[in-house]
């Protein structure tokens, strides 16, 4: 990433030594940066997977703080709920002057029942509800200066480390949801797989995804140019990332590192020789965060909007914004 050039420092009088043909157009980059820092950013991540796959821990590891519901809600018991619940919790985090409102949306109960038919429905409905809320605000005559963005930018799907292939539930879920939201599949608790098992599993998963026509993030069709394609191809060859999460620190070689301590060794979470957490973190946070948000707003949201506006002109509309068509689809 190229650091943008900075114009003359403010408060200083522009001296006659300054390049005389310099207009100062590139100062707009600095202006944009200032505005962005002042406004802050929003990010909404949803985590989906069976209970016990380490979703909360991974979120905490990603954001190096206690952002998941386990620590926020004072529930004494962690009972598996009878139906799927959708719980979202927001946090304000700040790093080097950059403020971010992070919302983690948890889906306890997913895939935990005996009969998991249609367990994706509440999640689809939630995602569509967020699009609906945004659309309603956008359509208002008197609308807010900055429409609050509650749309789900990214959905991390946790695949249990069976080592064989994707289960029917995984395929069904990802097939449907990849059409409305950016899905990032991860192999959870990857410390139970050896490297060979891991590679085999990943390949199998990629084949399954391809065979079922599931397009996960980064989607091939949204690559903008050659440069993008090259970067994204490398990522596509590595997904799903095999991750291990931890919020405990241990002493390793004189350094304090996040890891999991076992009798046979300590797994370092941020060591790419041990697991691919660092790649996931870099993808989600350090390089592709803006891109994830852009795809959500310019593609997924627009698709929803087109569908919704067309529906209104033709068919009946339910109160939660889903027409008969999409109800059938689900």
């Amino acid at each position, binding site marked *: 990433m*190229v650091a943008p050039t900075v114009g003359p420092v403010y408060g200083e009088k522009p001296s006659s030594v300054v390049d005389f043909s310099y207009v100062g157009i590139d100062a707009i980059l600095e202006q944009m940066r200032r505005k962005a820092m002042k406004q802050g950013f929003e990010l909404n991540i949803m985590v989906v997977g069976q209970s016990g796959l380490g979703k909360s821990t991974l979120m905490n590891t990603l954001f190096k703080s206690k952002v998941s519901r386990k620590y926020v809600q004072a529930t004494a018991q962690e009972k598996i709920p009878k139906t799927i619940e959708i719980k979202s919790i927001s946090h304000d985090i700040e790093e080097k002057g950059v403020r971010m409102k992070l919302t983690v949306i948890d889906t306890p109960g997913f895939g935990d029942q005996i009969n998991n038919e249609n367990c994706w429905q509440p999640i689809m409905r939630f995602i569509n509800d967020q699009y609906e809320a945004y659309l309603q605000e956008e359509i208002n005559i008197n609308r807010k200066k900055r429409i609050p963005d509650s749309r789900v930018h990214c959905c991390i799907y946790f695949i249990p480390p069976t080592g064989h292939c994707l289960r029917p539930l995984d395929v069904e879920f990802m097939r449907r949801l990849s059409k409305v939201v950016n899905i990032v599949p991860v192999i959870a608790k990857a410390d139970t797989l050896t490297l060979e098992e891991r590679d085999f599993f990943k390949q199998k998963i990629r084949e399954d995804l391809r065979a079922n026509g599931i397009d996960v993030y980064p989607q091939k069709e949204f690559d903008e140019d050659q440069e993008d394609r090259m970067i994204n191809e490398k990522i596509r060859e590595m997904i799903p990332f095999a991750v291990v999460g931890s919020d405990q620190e241990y002493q390793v070689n004189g350094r304090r590192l996040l890891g999991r301590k076992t009798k046979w060794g300590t797994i370092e979470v941020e060591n790419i020789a041990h697991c691919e957490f660092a790649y996931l973190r870099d993808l989600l946070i350090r390089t592709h965060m803006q891109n994830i948000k852009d795809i959500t707003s310019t593609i997924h949201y627009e698709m929803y909007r087109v569908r919704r506006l067309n529906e209104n002109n033709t068919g009946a509309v339910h109160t939660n914004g889903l027409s008969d068509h999409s109800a059938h689809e689900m």
Partner: protein
Amino acid sequence: MIYNDVLLSSLDFDTGEGARAVPLSGHVGFDSMPDQLVNKSVNHGFCFNILCVGETGLGKSTLMDTLFNTKFEGDPTQHNQPGVTLKSNTYELQESNVRLKLTVVNTVGFGDQINKEDSYKPIVEFIDAQFEAYLQEELKIKRTLHSYHDSRIHACLYFIAPTGHSLKSLDLVTMKKLDSKVNIIPIIAKSDAVSKSELAKFKIKITSELVSNGVQIYQFPTDDESVAEINSTMNSHLPFAVVGSTEEVKIGNKMVKARQYPWGTVQVENENHCDFVKLREMLIRVNMEDLREQTHARHYELYRRCKLEEMGFKDTDPDSKPFSLQETYEAKRNEFMGELQKKEEEMRQMFVQRVKEKEAELKEAEKELHEKFDRLKKLHQDEKKKLEEKKKSLDDELNMFKQKKTAAELLLNQAQQLSRTKQ
């Protein structure tokens, strides 16, 4: 199914209800977000649209050339149109890695008319047309907002003639009409015509006239600490007294942009001589992004609100929501299309009618011609018959004569023979 509402915070982070501030125990890496955002914008390119309003000969084109350090138009504008027209030109500029699509709109013929009552109208219509185009795009079902070329005017430089006294009434009227639609930055053009002391009085007079007439000019924003100070200082220097020049003169050992007179040289970039540097600083280097934001968040929203209310939409009608906007817009569009079609039909009918009439006329004429022809033919035949009869009777006469002649000759022969035998 249970779900909790997503906890939304209000615009300001400080009053974020329900969102807890959580400390981070290590480096996460989202501090790269501003960089990611800036990179995306760099790849996309920027666009900036300036409108220059002012009378003919105030140096609008020259100032644009000076501001952006290029020679924009090849030939000077023709000033021979009757009314006020707006001419817009788009240029692609690049500086380091920033690509800017700059559109400069000039008012040609402003202030040239004898009756200037309607001079402001083409300008207001132009600005509204850009808003309308954006609104149309925004309301489309299949839209491409992120690749839409934004033509809305971000800044309006209003050129004030350097009379040294006060604003002209045309200026006041025009600025009043424009202040709710665009960010106005008033500047004193060709300010080398005004002396320093006169200039100070002139600026004060202009500012007080603007205030007393309730004209809202653009205020450089003072809410961000890093630029608050410089912006508030500059606010007090408005209107900027500028001089433009693309010609270079050697001063000392450097070539500088200047205007050379027999009594001295006015250096454009010398802050003691004029406020050009201040204008460039404020317009481009410090507040370009804010100008764009104000245009979108304030002026455009106002236009949108008024336009939609004018068309009869309301926010508080629960039955017709959602998408009454879309529906009614579409309905109105259909209505217009229907009217259009009706008009087309009418015109078509009229056309068909006319054709029929013409056809009937032509048929009549044809019939007449035929009749005439028949008559003439008959006449001809009659004549011919008569002639033939005459010929026949003449032939008969001729035959009779011949017969008589032969009979007479015979008699003569017989008589001759008789006389011969008698001898």
